[in-house]
């Protein structure tokens, strides 16, 4: 059993309230819920919508099919009507449209007016929707109570009930399980991962779609003791974060492509000073300002090669909220183990979609600082911040931690002590030292996840947030008996090639599927594995691939069915 609801309207019409109550009600009723957002770069007007999908079995993505549309304006009907399944329903105010076969026009505004508070119109609609699905009002009432109080709460409760009474139940739902899940979006999961990993310094500059990550950190600032600072620009952000990290505090910054572009000199600084840092790059379509509120995976190569000069870095594409949580926590450990920048790559789709998943297991997180307490210093020696070692990793001390020892980090090429050098020999040694760390890092790369068949004839390669849509699609195709699998990369730089090489040698067809126009993963695969994809499916209109679209394109273009 699965249903899809779309709530649409202009920005500022209160769509988010309807959506939040529906999502949480469904979730707390024990359903699996998946909710994603499509919004414009404006505060009022235009057209925004939220899609809520729920089911009695786990779900991994949105769907382009719709059972019910809640249309807060007529535009919503025009734009989405064609996606209604047969028998699907549209709930709207009687003024928006008259009732027809699939339109249930209700006196929403009138009811709200009668209650004496026109703003509860959305709650009326919520009530109607719940009734349509036969979902009890209890959870919704609780949610309203925690949001409102006094007369406003009363009006909302009334609105909910009156809305409930306007329609009859038409969907029969399977009974859901117990609610022991959490409902969380990609940015929140990154934030939670960071906090669990001991990140206590977050600085950034607002930029859609990364802002909610900083906002969540700020909300927890007092409670968890995290410095969260909005800085003057993204250059300050990365330089501050590096300062905090140097001082010994786990630090992070985040932005979207344009803000990250301003950080790349700082990424290079992290490289030569060997200062650990975690950076979240929440992609949106570029170039430049581009499509601020929409989604794309078009910064991959830019991120991988970000920063002048040569130094090891790690790039991890997070694939879903669960992955985001654990990978973020891992990122902090890797950053400190190898003393490198680690960049987490996400995108607007994943940043803003929320999903019911198992609660995170905090006991799986360990905080491994790899700090030296001075034990590495041979008696009376001066501390060498850049001591040449077999691994390339030098013992890392924190300023002030060992009496009498000082720590020099330097953006110039430097000797073992961290002092400026002009020596050709030291230079070569230091380059080798830094690059050696990458060799070690390669050994702990996590190979991409394979969805679907074990040794598929048709091998899809993809990365990041397309994990969800692909998981849905591949599952369906495998059920149809097609020998298909999708390799979805998480760790993406250094690039893990083992699993890919093994599968590619057996596959008959390799298809690259990405949310960009230049097939960036394909280029990376060519470069790192000398494998060329046979076909590319690319989407770059700012709207995420849906499972249905992928299915149709695979069926149409690839399987030629």
């Amino acid at each position, binding site marked *: 059993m699965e249903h899809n609801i779309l709530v649409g309207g202009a920005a500022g019409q209160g769509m988010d309230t309807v959506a939040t109550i529906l999502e949480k009600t469904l979730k707390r009723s024990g359903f699996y819920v998946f909710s994603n957002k499509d919004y414009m770069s404006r505060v009022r007007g235009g057209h925004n919508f939220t899609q809520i999908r729920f089911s009695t079995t786990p779900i991994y993505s949105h769907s382009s099919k719709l059972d019910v549309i809640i249309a807060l304006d007529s535009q919503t009907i025009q734009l989405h009507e064609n996606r209604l399944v047969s028998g699907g329903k549209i709930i709207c105010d009687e003024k928006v449209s008259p009732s027809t076969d699939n339109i249930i026009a209700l006196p929403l505004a009138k009811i709200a007016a009668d209650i004496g508070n026109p703003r509860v119109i959305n709650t009326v609609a919520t009530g109607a929707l719940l009734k349509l699905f036969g979902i009890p009002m209890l959870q919704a009432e609780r949610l309203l109570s925690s949001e409102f109080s006094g007369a406003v709460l009363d009006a909302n409760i009334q609105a909910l009930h009156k809305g409930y009474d306007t329609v009859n139940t038409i969907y029969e739902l399977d009974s859901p399980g117990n609610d022991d899940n*959490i*409902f*969380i979006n990609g940015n*929140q999961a990154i934030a*939670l991962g960071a*906090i*669990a*990993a*001991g990140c*206590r*310094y977050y600085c950034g500059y607002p930029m859609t779609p990364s802002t909610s990550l900083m906002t969540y950190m700020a909300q*927890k*600032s*007092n409670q*968890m*003791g995290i*410095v969260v*600072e909005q*800085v*003057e*620009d993204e*250059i*300050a*952000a990365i*330089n*501050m974060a*590096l*300062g*905090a990290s*140097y*001082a*010994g*505090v*786990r*630090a992070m910054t985040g932005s979207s492509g344009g803000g990250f572009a301003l950080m790349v*000199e*700082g990424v290079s600084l992290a490289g030569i*000073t060997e200062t650990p840092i975690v950076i979240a790059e929440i992609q949106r379509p570029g170039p430049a300002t581009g499509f601020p509120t929409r989604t794309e995976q078009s910064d991959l190569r830019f991120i991988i090669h970000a920063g002048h000069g040569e130094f090891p870095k790690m790039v991890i594409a997070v694939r879903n909220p669960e992955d985001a949580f654990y990978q973020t*926590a891992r990122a902090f450990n890797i950053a400190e183990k190898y003393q490198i920048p680690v960049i987490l790559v996400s995108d607007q789709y994943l940043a803003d979609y929320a999903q019911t998943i198992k609660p*995170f297991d*905090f*006991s799986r*997180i*360990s*905080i491994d600082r790899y700090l030296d307490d001075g034990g590495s210093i041979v008696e009376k020696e001066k501390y060498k911040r850049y001591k040449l070692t077999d691994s390339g990793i030098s013992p890392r001390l924190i*300023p*002030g931690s*060992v*009496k*009498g020892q*000082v*720590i*020099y*980090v*330097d*953006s*110039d090429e430097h000797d073992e002590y*961290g*002092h*400026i050098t002009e020596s050709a020999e030291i230079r070569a040694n230091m380059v080798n030292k830094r690059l050696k760390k990458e060799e070690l890092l390669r050994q702990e790369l996590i190979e991409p996840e394979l969805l679907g068949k074990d040794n598929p004839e048709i091998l899809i390669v993809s990365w990041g947030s397309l994990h969800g849509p692909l998981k849905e699609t591949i599952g369906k195709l495998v059920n149809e008996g097609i020998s298909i699998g999708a390799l979805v990369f998480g760790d993406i730089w250094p690039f893990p090639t083992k699993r890919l090489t093994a599968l590619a040698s057996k596959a008959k067809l390799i298809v690259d599927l990405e949310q960009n126009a230049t097939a960036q993963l394909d280029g990376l695969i060519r470069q790192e594995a000398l494998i060329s994809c046979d076909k590319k499916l690319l989407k770059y209109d700012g709207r995420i691939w849906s499972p249905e679209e992928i299915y149709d394109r695979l069926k149409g273009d690839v399987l030629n069915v």
Partner: protein
Amino acid sequence: MFETYETAWCPGCGNFAILAALKDALTQLNLDPSEVVISSGIGQAAKTPHYINVNTFNGLHGRAVPPATAIKLSNKNLTVIAESGDGDTYGEGGNHFIHGIRRNVNIAHFIHDNQIYGLTKGQASPTTEKGQRTSLQFNGVIAEPVRPLFLALTMGAGFVARGFAGDREQLTELMKAAINYNGYAMIDILQPCVSFNKVNTFQWYKERVYRLPDDYDATDFSNALKTAMEWGDRIPTGIIYNVPRDTYIEQVDFLKDGPALVDRTLDPMDAKQLLEDFV
């Protein structure tokens, strides 16, 4: 205790005196090298920490202030100094300078102001006088110079001072006062560059600078503004403005109370409570 490497500056450079004053100040303040951190940019001035035995974050050109700010917030027990040139601070780093002041984190900022780009060989800096010819401005500088003290006051700095490399004694006192000041404290230090600034020479400064009189009232803002604007035949040195101001840390309870951020224990299980936000 603070001695270290051989310097790479030109003989006669004003930086030597600034370095000497800095060592004196730290010594007189009885600070242990491991308790002091200098964050510096890139340039001749910004090489300073390499010649003194303290913790150092020698970062990017223009970016001395953001790391300094973060280091202090991360470990309030450290004495944090930002060291940078005039190009570093008012040119590439202009935005961090003005916003760093607004944050009022307890750091001392020493700006070696030679009114020129030294390390890159003599281009105009934001403090080079209008009309001055340089190795790049062949027709003379077109733009009006930045007046650093005036700018710092405008942005709300609580401690604003001018020093002169030729007055090491006073400079040492200024540095001590800046380090002891509870908040962001800036000293713009007149520093002759013998190689590239043939206008603002040691002699030029010497003829013009005068110490602010003992009875100068450094708590009067409008007086401070007037003094900060004084430039030309007579150039005042000393503490131009000095008033208490709430610092960043004092305004954040969890930073103010308890141990330094870096000294707190981390446990992933502490974050488990946050799952409640998502049920």
